[in-house]
């Protein structure tokens, strides 16, 4: 009963955050410099006649008062009608749904890979604190953390695509070829290897560092000494007591990254010319394509909120102290 009331209160908080985020989403593109008219019409604003300008503006609904634009915006969101891209004329939801699977293929795979490796390496480093292994892996991870994404991506392209010719360097599928079944899956996998690899490698340090730190603090806890004094095997102490408790803060890190995963990764997708949400967003921003920008931002916002909600509801399951 009490728990349900608390759950409702929390949902209420999320609803408030969502309203604020959607409103910002509406306002931000309109605060940016530059007029979208040029892009819609395909010519510079200065070259248009006032009549032409007015027609284009009215067509896009940009002549209405802001309040009306805002309400229209809400109405369209609630009816899942996100409008059309200024530039391409395609419905937004079509664009987003087209791109989302590709992005998720990259980011979720990378998240799983980086999560597993980061947790394992972080726990191991902490367990062997001060050893050569710990110091070595820690320095390596810090170096990796400061490696630019585009640099590593381009290095991989130069190595695996250009020099060795093992893997394709761009796109999600081989263009101009119709494949089906396993052959298609193999083609997709082949294209995904390099971006996933780059993204995974660069995501490991954050997980590793938080897991290592969290494990170190758990190792100093009195209940670890209790577990040892019970005569448990080191592996049982490590798994049931150390890692189990050390995972708590890392879970939050991972859940939040899950939200970010929906936003795609602008740099990686651009380097590998991958047709994901990140590139859609990048193109929309550089073209001042409001509806597309708002559509992608909205997906991103909702994903982050859902991920937070997930982390919130997951935490009491993992840590009984936070249960009501």
């Amino acid at each position, binding site marked *: 009963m009490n728990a349900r*009331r*608390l759950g409702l*209160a929390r949902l*209420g908080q999320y609803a408030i955050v969502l309203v604020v985020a959607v409103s910002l989403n509406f306002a931000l593109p309109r605060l940016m410099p530059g007029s979208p008219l040029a892009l819609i019409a395909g010519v510079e604003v200065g070259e248009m006649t006032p009549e032409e300008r007015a027609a284009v503006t009215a067509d896009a609904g940009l002549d209405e008062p802001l309040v009306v634009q805002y309400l229209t915006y809400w109405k369209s969101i609630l009816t899942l009608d996100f409008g059309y891209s200024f530039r391409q004329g395609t419905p937004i939801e079509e664009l987003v749904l087209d791109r989302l699977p590709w992005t998720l293929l990259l980011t979720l795979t990378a998240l799983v890979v980086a999560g597993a490796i980061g947790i394992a390496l972080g726990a191991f480093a902490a367990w062997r604190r001060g050893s050569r292994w710990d110091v070595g892996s820690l320095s390596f991870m810090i170096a990796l953390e400061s490696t630019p994404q585009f640099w590593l991506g381009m290095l991989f392209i130069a190595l695996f695509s250009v020099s060795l010719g093992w893997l394709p360097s761009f796109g999600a599928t081989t263009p101009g070829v119709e494949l089906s079944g396993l052959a298609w899956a193999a083609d997709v996998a082949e294209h995904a290897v390099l971006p996933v690899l780059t993204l995974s490698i660069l995501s490991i340090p954050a997980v590793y560092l938080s897991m290592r730190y969290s494990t170190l603090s758990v190792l100093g*806890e*009195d*209940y670890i*000494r*209790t*577990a*040892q*004094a*019970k*005569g*448990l*095997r080191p592996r*049982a102490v490590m798994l*049931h*007591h150390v890692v*189990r*408790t050390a995972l*708590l803060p890392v879970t939050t890190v991972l859940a939040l990254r899950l939200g970010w995963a929906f936003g795609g990764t602008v740099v990686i997708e651009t380097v590998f010319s991958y047709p994901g949400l990140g590139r859609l967003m990048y193109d929309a921003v550089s073209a001042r394509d409001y509806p597309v920008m708002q559509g992608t931002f909205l997906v991103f916002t909702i994903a982050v909120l859902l991920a937070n909600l997930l982390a919130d509801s997951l935490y009491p399951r*993992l*840590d*009984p*102290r936070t249960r009501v």
Partner: protein
Amino acid sequence: MVTAPPRVTELLAIRGLRVTFRAAGRDVHAVRGVDLSVAEGETLAVVGESGSGKSVTMTAALGLLPENAEVEGSIRLRDRELLAMDERALRSVRGAEIGVVFQDPMSSLNPVHTVSRQIAEAIRAHSDVSRGAAHARAVELLGEVGIPDAKARADDYPHQFSGGMRQRVMIAMALACGPRVLIADEPTTALDVTVQAQIVDLVDRIRRGRGMSVIWISHDLGVVAQIADRVTVMYAGRVVEQGPCADLFDAAVHPYTAGLLRAMPRLDSPAGAELEVIRGSLPDPEAQPEGCVFAPRCDHAQEECAAARPTLLPLVAGGGHAVACHRSGELLDHGRVVPARLGGSPTLRAGADNPRPSGAVDGAPAGEAPAAAAAPAPPPAAEAPAPPVVVALDDLRVHYRGRGSWRRSAAPVRAVDGVTLDLERGRTLGLVGESGSGKSTLARALLGLEKTSGGAVAFGDQVLHTMSAVGLRDLRRTAQMVFQDPAASMNPALRVEDVVSEPLRINRRGSVAEQRVRAGELLEIVELPRELGRRYPHQLSGGQRQRVAIARALALDPQVLVCDEPVSALDVSVQAQIIRLLSRLQSELGLSLLIISHDLAVIRTIAHRVAVMYLGQIVERGNRDDVFGRPRHPYTRGLLDAVPVPDPHRRSRPVPLAGDPPSPVAPPSGCRFHERCAFARPGLCDTTPPPLEEQRPGHWTACHLADEIAASSTAPDPARSATG
């Protein structure tokens, strides 16, 4: 090396144990040669202050020392050498043959697993039983250690239990595999005195029931006297004295043991008796002295003491009482007449044949309390007219908002719920009560650090909550606070002199140079050398840090000093130094002290008046001698009964106060204590709250039945009759 013939029943025997921690080219000698043993079915108490190496010794027996520890010597369990065992063999001993209970049950239990799972895990680590069977056994064990409704509570998590219940869970876990030896490492130090009595009883009952041996590690001589068969006293990594409990308490021979017994505040000493101080502090753990480790602090030290290490020798050939002291023969002759249990006897102090070494020779660093500067302890009950009141609390209430949803707030936590008290000039008020009774909240409210929900705090004619911000700042100068943990209450990045002068800086008093001079003066007031000002807090000992905290509190010449558990984090010998310092400062500076402590003996030593707090309210207050000598409230009696008397001949085990205090969110109706009170009368105590009345002159009690209880109670306890 003990020359006593090894007994056949010897279960766990440690011989010549040395443990050295090697870190960054520095060796810390934690254990410098320890011999001790526990026999089948016996309780051995290992007594020592922090740094004595008692816990390290036991950790070594479990094979749980960190990798940088170097261990020499021998630890035998029956006929097996533990130090020669490989990790696998040691694991089969840990938990199965040796069970352990640690100090803090909250941090020693894993918060994310249910208690039954943690117990079952210990069972399954040593025997091949199913999960179901292990769980069933866990429930049985929980019942055995006195968890009410064990079956239902077995799948609860540690945070859902009270402190005492958690320690019972720890004990159930240690017993899971039927160990031969139970090592209890300060198992009651983190608990209230009432709960401590319950746990002491439980362990002793289980030991007798199972015929198990117990090694009880403690710094509390009271508990030790109540439970131990034999006692081993450790100092700076060595055993200085060991023997049967009664011999040791009756006729302690080693100057350290004797000093410890006299430094300890106790309820059965004559009221107003002075505590003796063991001067100086522990030797540098990195040094490896050739002679006696205690020589630098010893009043009896001679040349040979610093030159050669004394061996632990039985006083009588073949006897059980052994002492590591070159002068044990002479001290024994004198010592036989020392009634150590009455405390305060000067026999073992510097005698004519033993001139006290001058301060320069003893090598002890700062922090030494010159015995000559001893302040008079509080005088007996005041007949003189009451001194003027400095601070008055009138029906003070502090309620915290409870946790509720975002629209409706839950019932408040009534931390302080209608307290009327006053602090008199130049006198000390002691505030006692179990944890959660609201003592600390009361103190913070007095200083204006807590928002009050009702009532008033008045400094003279100034009422706290009506004052402006400027007025409050002025007020804070007149009332200062000393915290329990001096290390946590100081900025580690500041030098000691900056810590002390910080209040001056904040209040812009004088130039930087003047502030520095004043800091030096303040350090001298608290008996620290000025040079210490250049050091950092972490370079000081615990006692020195608490002196620095007091110096800081004195920087603005306050009239009122609030001390929240000022000696709880300190060792017994250092406690006495700080208590004497506070008394001296009071008489020299005319300070009014509010001292909060869970340790009734400390309060009895230092306070003029005492207030007993229960669930946010005062249940009894009066002069020290009235409250301690003729307690009228059943709660006060329960608290006093729960305090272990450091006298093995008086192992009275009165029924300890049962249970834990109820929640301050929904205090019981009527008298808040009635649920735990043996005298409670239905229809009166559970319906009508008793008012705090002056039932005897100057002695206020909130109890309907105080007169009846006083009339019906049996002959007065000798512990009490010693008072006043």
